[in-house]
């Protein structure tokens, strides 16, 4: 199929940037979206044009590295997939496809479609971990009984790959879905409950410090999340936050 791509080009963080138009022909419907961009970049290199910079790594929907706001939606029009899992069969011959970077002030653009999502790393570093006692007396995790429901919910929360689609989709650029998934995956398990109070307070404070907006419960994040992280996590984080502040 033949397509018209409207791609955001921006040389650097300080550059103004603009949408540029690139026609592309003979696109196979079996290609992944990123493979289509690979083909475009080969054509651009042949024409001595700077190739389009975009984030990618595993191309299996696990690493959380790929992003892109495609035709007005994070990771494109398909559901429960990352951009690397999106296939060109989702588009029609003659379509015009808008490709933009994830936009949020907390995710500054580095180049073209590449954004700096290290704010998520800093939020994780503020509390998204379990401190392990290395004295030699650490109990084997498998010997601690955990209710099946709690283990399942914690596992579902832990499938968050930190891609930032929630922030990109939210009209307020809120990171609540990401932070709440990280809070939930630990707070539901006995190993994580020891530091639960400090964790939720520190991660929420860090989230605010990084400049993410307020959650207004539109639910856009849950719909666009490639891993289907539930809004229930946000409600749980709100409960944990209230509880932690009452007990502190």
């Amino acid at each position: 199929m033949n397509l018209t791509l409207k791609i955001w080009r921006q040389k650097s963080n300080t550059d103004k940037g603009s949408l540029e138009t690139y026609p592309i022909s003979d696109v196979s419907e079996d290609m992944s979206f990123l493979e289509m961009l690979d083909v475009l970049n080969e054509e651009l290199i042949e024409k001595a044009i700077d190739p389009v910079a975009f984030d990618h790594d595993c191309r299996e929907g696990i690493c959380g590295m790929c992003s892109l706001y495609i035709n007005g939606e994070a990771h494109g029009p398909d559901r429960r997939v990352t951009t690397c899992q999106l296939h060109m069969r989702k588009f029609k011959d003659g379509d015009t496809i808008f490709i933009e970077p994830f936009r949020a002030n907390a995710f500054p653009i580095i180049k073209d479609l590449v954004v700096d999502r290290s704010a998520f790393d800093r939020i994780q570093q503020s509390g998204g971990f379990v401190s392990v006692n290395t004295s030699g007396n650490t109990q084997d995790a498998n010997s601690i009984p955990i209710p099946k429901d709690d283990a399942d919910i914690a596992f579902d929360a832990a499938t968050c790959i930190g891609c930032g689609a929630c922030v990109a989709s939210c009209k307020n650029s809120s990171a609540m879905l990401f932070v709440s998934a990280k809070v939930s995956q630990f707070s539901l398990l006995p190993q994580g409950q020891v530091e639960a109070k400090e964790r939720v307070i520190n991660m929420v404070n860090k989230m605010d410090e990084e400049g993410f907006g307020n959650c207004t419960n539109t639910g856009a994040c849950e719909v666009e999340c490639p891993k289907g992280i539930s809004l229930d996590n946000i409600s749980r984080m709100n409960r944990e936050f209230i509880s932690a502040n009452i007990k502190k």
Partner: protein
Amino acid sequence: MSKSTFYTSIGYKILMALSGLFLMVFLLQHLVINSLSVVSPESFNEASHFMGTNPLVQFLLQPVLIFGVVFHFIMGFFLDLRNRKSRTFNYAYNKPSANSSWPSRNMIISGITVLAFLAIHFIDFWIPEISTKYIAGDMSGLMNDGEFRYYHELHEKFNALPRVIAYVIAFVFLSLHLLHGFQSSFQSVGVSTNKTRSSFYKIGTIFAIVVPFGFITIALFHFLTQH
């Protein structure tokens, strides 16, 4: 909870939700009293006189209500401005309808419409009421003929078609505001879960239809019974 708890994104959400829940309770009791004007003018007069002269209502609940209204609106504007600052460069092509409802994304628009309505409502009812009671000093609630004035005043106000149209429009926007606001407030205070979310949504939808359209019915009743 410490003071700093409320100066966080979650703290703001909780305060917004609590003030919203308080205002929803007020709306419900306002609807119940106004409904009396349709079924029994005498009961409406008695309830209005009680609410208008009871010191507890007048000097405790009324100031709390005014504070709640002002707080909810100021917080709404504050949070909207704060959220706009988190994305200063917008998408060239955005498709929000693919993932969220119009009422959930436009609470500020429905909220401003309700605020504009409140200004009309205050001019129509609250200011004349305060003027009669606390400036003219007439706490009797009676007209010259010895009858209670409350039903007469309400009925007369809805004689004018432009006022009725303004009320209907405002209550449609209130309905849209409540459609998202009801279930959203339970999510913000952490009560909502995967198991209860659909129930809050259903109850919220019923509340968002019954309460505003109840007020619309009352306004239409008083208009139609005069024409």
